[in-house]
């Protein structure tokens, strides 16, 4: 299971790198098309860039959750015991889990809605964009489940 998640995580990392590289292309084309005659002025460049961008944000959010990199505020003193640490981490993860469930449950109507809709300029099915939310939810749940095992181990380490 761990290996599978590691593979999935590596895939997300590669996807994020490629998306960021791809993002540069349409905007560059947009500028040059204005000043250089032989580059065609496609109107879908802007739309393509926006769609890559949405995926970058959500794939980045998936990766950041596994690394625990989402910005947090350090106001309370850190718990001293392992049990305290485990409880605090489990609470944070529970909140992330609720958010993930919201992405899945209320993101689903968004996907169904997207099946009927195509984008304005490039006429891409919008489902390819809206899908990103439930997918973020599912990915988060997988990564959170992976971590729960560690939390429980940490909690038990104090029991004796």
């Amino acid at each position, binding site marked *: 299971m761990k290996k599978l998640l590691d593979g999935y995580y590596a895939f997300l*990392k590669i996807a*994020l*790198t490629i*998306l*960021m*590289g791809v*993002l*540069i292309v349409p*905007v*560059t084309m*947009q*500028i040059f098309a204005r000043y250089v005659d032989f580059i065609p002025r496609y109107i879908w460049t*802007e739309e393509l*860039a*926006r769609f890559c*961008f*949405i995926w*970058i*944000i*959500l*794939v*980045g*959010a998936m*990766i*950041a959750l596994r690394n625990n*990199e*989402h*910005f*947090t*505020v*350090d*106001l*309370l003193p850190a718990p001293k015991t392992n049990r305290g640490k485990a409880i*605090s981490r489990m*609470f*944070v993860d529970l*909140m*992330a889990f*609720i*958010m993930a469930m*919201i*992405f899945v*449950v*209320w*993101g689903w*109507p*968004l996907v169904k809605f997207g099946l009927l809709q195509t984008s304005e300029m490039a006429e891409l099915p919008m489902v390819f*964009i*809206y899908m990103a*939310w439930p997918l973020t939810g599912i990915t988060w749940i997988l990564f959170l489940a992976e971590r729960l095992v560690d939390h429980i181990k940490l909690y038990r380490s104090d029991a004796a």
Partner: protein
Amino acid sequence: MSAWQVAAILFPLFMVLVVLRVPVAISLGLACIPVFLLEERLTPFLLMNEMFKSYNAFLLLAVPFFLLAANIMNAAGITDRLVQLSRSMVGHLPGGLGHVNVIVSMLFAGISGSSTADAAGIGSLLIPQMKKQGYSTSFSVAITACSSVMGVVIPPSILMVVWGGLMSVSIGGLFLAGVVPGILIAGSQMVAVYVFAKIYDYPMYPRSSLKEFLLALVHAVPPLMTPLIIVGGIVAGFFTPTEASVVAVLYSVVLGGVFYRTIGFHNIPSILFNSAKFAAMSLFCIGTASAFGWILAYFKIPLAVIEFLEPFGVGPTSTGLIVAGSFLLIGMFIDAIPAIIILGTVLWPLAEVSQMHPIHFAIIGVISLAFGLVTPPYGLCLLIACKIGNIEVKDALRDVAIVLMPMLVVLMIVILFPELILALPRLLMAKFI
């Protein structure tokens, strides 16, 4: 539900979650959920809807691009050349390396739109050098962190792009308005360095000859062209802010790949990945903050705030103080961009009532939020600088507070004399102001 009822759910819930170390982005989203569920006309579906709407903005593409450009410039070793130039300019003053740190940050701020890239790039270069020359670690960290905040004040600036897009203010105008306060901040920090140097007897470099200065200048000219290209291109109407950010990326690739030959295919993927990840984390927060801001607007909470404040009299100056105070406070706890989305929506009507100029309002907000980058508990630049200097945040706080004092004076000057910041945009972009 009334405005006050909604506010009584949103804000306490958000704060409790944040204090319990729930990530800010998630806390903002979860705080919205009870309101969406309790109010019959609303549903949590709106959270996704508002997130989608906020991400689907072409303008915001400038955020990852400006970050990417800054990271490429860092990797290309441009910071090194800027250090050489600054050293030949101010190295001979007492506390030479401290002044160099401030001037490099100012120059780098003109190249990048982000303060965090500034803190990371300059910090990893200068903090070890400063330590070696006998500067205290806490001072080295403090001056690096504080000077890096110029990144968001001096154009180009990611915060100004977001602000301009959100409140329909001319981004070219904002960029120009940031120049004078940026230089004032640099000046105020050099005063702080001078005082420290006199008290602790920090070393200085021998004065550089004119020839050395000119040589350093020639070496640093290509990166120093960046602000001219970006700001000039926007002001003259050659390209939009988003396109300008891509121009910055392309220019940095040309500099690093062709001109200096310091970057190549081996380090491009990791630069792309790190820039994308960092941009995504702050942008993800924008989505949930937008939902939060949407609820505030839907229940007319900004109006309630105005009605509450109006009896106290709101002139431009007192409004300026309220705006600065609110942004300083919120900047301590959350990232600058969500702060703009949340507080900007609340305070914008107030600024309108008091007849404040939109650019003046924006610059006060941006400078106040710049402080937030170094004020704990959530000060990204301070965290980065402390990590590089290898000290605890609390050990750097005293020096940070001292360096911030003269900066506060600059903020007051900006609040009291709007003409000072409006002069440059009026001169160069009269039509749009």
